[in-house]
C-alpha cells in the first residue's frame, strides 16, 4: 500500500497534460452553469407566480426547489462525463505496454487499483467543488440550509466516486477505450433505471428480486442525501458499491497473470 500515492500522482499528472481533463472541467463548468441559471430562473418564476398565495410562498425554499433540482441535474451530467474520465485508466496502460512495467515493479495490485481509483476520486472531488462554488453563491443572496446544501454535495461526491469505481472496472476488462466508455455508460444508465425496472419488471414489485434491484439503484440512496437525510444505510451502500467494484477490478488486473 506504500505506492498508492505514487500511482495516483502519475495518473493525475497524465490526466492534466492531456486535453481530456481540461475538456471535461470546462465542459462541466459550462453545463453546471447552464443548469444553475435555468434552475434559478425557474425558481424566480415560481416565486412570482406564488405571490398571491402567501401560505404556499412560505413553503417555497431555496433547497427544496433550487438546489434539489440543480444537484439532480449534476448527477446526470456526472453519469455522462465520468465514463470519459475513467475509460483510459487501465486501457492506456495496456496500450503503452506499461502494464508490464507496473506488474514487474515492487508494487502490489492494490497499489495500482487504489492509486487509480484515488486519482479518479480526486478529479471528481474537483468537479463537485465547482458545484459547491455555485451553491455558495446562494448564501450571498439568500438563506439556504447549510445542512441540506452540504449533504447534497456529499451525495454527489459519493455518487461520483461510485461511478469512478465502476468505470475503472470497465477499463480493466477491455483493451479498447471506446468499449470501456460504452460499458460504463450502459452500466450507469442501468443503475439509474433500476427503480423503474424493479417496479414493472419481470419479478413483480415487492418480491425479493425487485427489492434487491431497487436497493442497487444509486438514485435510491442519493435522494435521501439530497433531502438532507444522512443515513448510515445509504453511506454503507456507497461503501459496498465502491468496495465491490474495486475488488473485481483487482481481480481483472490480476487476470493477465493467469490468462
Amino acid at each position, binding site marked *: 500500500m506504500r*505506492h498508492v500515492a*505514487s*500511482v495516483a500522482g*502519475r495518473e493525475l*499528472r*497524465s490526466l492534466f*497534460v*492531456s486535453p481530456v481533463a481540461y475538456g471535461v472541467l470546462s465542459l462541466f463548468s459550462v453545463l453546471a452553469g447552464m443548469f444553475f441559471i435555468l434552475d434559478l430562473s425557474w425558481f424566480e418564476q415560481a416565486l412570482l407566480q406564488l405571490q398571491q398565495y402567501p401560505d404556499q410562498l412560505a413553503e417555497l425554499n431555496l433547497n427544496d426547489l433550487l438546489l434539489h433540482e440543480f444537484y439532480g441535474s449534476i448527477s446526470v451530467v456526472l453519469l455522462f462525463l465520468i465514463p470519459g474520465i475513467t475509460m483510459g485508466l487501465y486501457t492506456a496502460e495496456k496500450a*503503452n*505496454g*506499461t*502494464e*508490464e*512495467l*507496473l*506488474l*514487474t*515493479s*515492487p*508494487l*502490489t495490485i492494490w497499489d495500482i487499483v487504489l492509486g487509480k481509483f484515488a486519482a479518479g476520486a480526486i478529479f471528481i472531488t474537483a468537479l463537485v467543488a465547482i458545484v459547491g462554488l455555485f451553491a455558495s453563491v446562494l448564501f450571498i443572496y439568500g438563506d439556504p440550509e447549510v445542512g441540506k446544501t452540504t449533504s447534497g454535495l456529499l451525495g454527489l461526491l459519493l455518487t461520483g466516486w461510485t461511478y469512478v469505481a465502476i468505470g475503472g472496472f470497465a477499463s480493466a476488462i477491455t483493451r479498447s477505450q471506446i468499449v470501456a466508455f460504452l460499458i460504463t455508460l450502459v452500466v450507469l444508465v442501468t443503475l439509474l433505471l433500476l427503480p423503474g425496472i424493479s417496479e414493472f419488471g419481470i419479478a413483480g414489485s415487492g418480491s425479493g428480486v425487485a427489492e434487491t434491484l431497487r436497493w442497487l439503484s444509486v438514485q435510491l440512496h442519493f435522494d435521501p442525501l439530497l433531502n438532507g437525510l444522512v443515513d448510515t444505510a445509504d453511506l454503507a451502500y456507497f461503501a459496498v458499491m465502491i468496495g465491490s467494484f474495486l475488488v473485481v477490478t483487482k481481480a481483472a488486473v490480476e487476470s*493477465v*497473470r*493467469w490468462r
Partner: protein
Amino acid sequence: MFANEKAGDGRIPRESVAADEVVGFGGDVGFNCIGVGHVIQAKRLTKRYGDLVAVEDIDFSIARGEVVGFLGPNGAGKTTTMRMLTGFLPPTDGTALIAGHDMFSDPIAARRAIGYLPETPPLYPEMRVESFLAYVAKIKDVPHAERRAAVDRALARTALNDVRRQVIGTLSKGFRQRVGLAQAIVHNPPVLILDEPTAGLDPLQIREIRTLIAELTAPSQGDTQQTVILSTHILAEVDAICRRVILINQGRKVVDAPLSELTADGRTLDQVFTEHTASDAAFPLEAAIVSGPGGAS
C-alpha cells in the same frame, strides 16, 4: 542470503562479492546460501496454456556479472521465459530465484532486484523523459533522497541528457528504446532482463544500444555490476556482447555453453543455431529462414 536480508532493500551489497570472485561459479559463498553466487536461477520453469506447452523444464543458473544471450527462433518461448523470470507471468511449474529471492514466495523483493525492458518499451507518451524516470525510480523503491541522483545517472548512462525535458511521444524510435533501457537501470538493479533490445532499430542505433549494454556490464564507480540476460534472434548481437549462450527451441533448452566453447571447433554461431533448431524442429525450413538474417550480418 543473510547479508541480503540485512541490507533489506533487495540489492546485493557490493562488499559481499569481490570482483575477482565473479568469474567462478561457486566463489562468493557469503552472498547466497541457496544458489551460491547465482544471481538468477530458473528451476524447471514450465508454462502451459491448456494442452499447448510454451516452455518446458527450463533450468539454468547465471552468476553475477555474466552476460547471457538468450537465443531461439521466433516463438521458441524466449519472451514467455523472460516474463516468468520477471514475475509478470506465473509459471505452471517450477520457480525462479532472483538475487536469492523466490519470485513467487517473495515477489516484491525479487522484483526490486530486476530491471526489465520488455519487447515494446513501456513508456507513457505524454510524460517527459525526466519525470517518467523519476516515477519509475519511485515505484522501484529508490529512496526519496537518492531519486534525483538515480535519474541523473540513468540519463547519463543512456546518453539521454539532451532530451531529458522532452515529451516521450515526440522522441524517435531509437531514443525511445534508450528511455526504455534507462527505466530498466534507473534503480541500479543487480539483474537486467532485456527482451530483444535492438528489435526494429536501424544499424546505427543497434550499434549504440549494443555499446550501451556492454558499458552496463562493465560498471563505473558507484554502479552495481549488472548481470544481463538478453534475448534476441540476431546472432551477430550475441557474438558482439555475450559470453554465454542459452539456446531454446520449441520451449526447451537445447544449448547452454560459453560462446567460446561453442565456436571452439571453428564453427560459426550460425551453424550451431541451425543445427540445434532445425534438427528436431517440425518445420526445419522455418527455423532455417529465421536464422538467415543473423548469418548474413
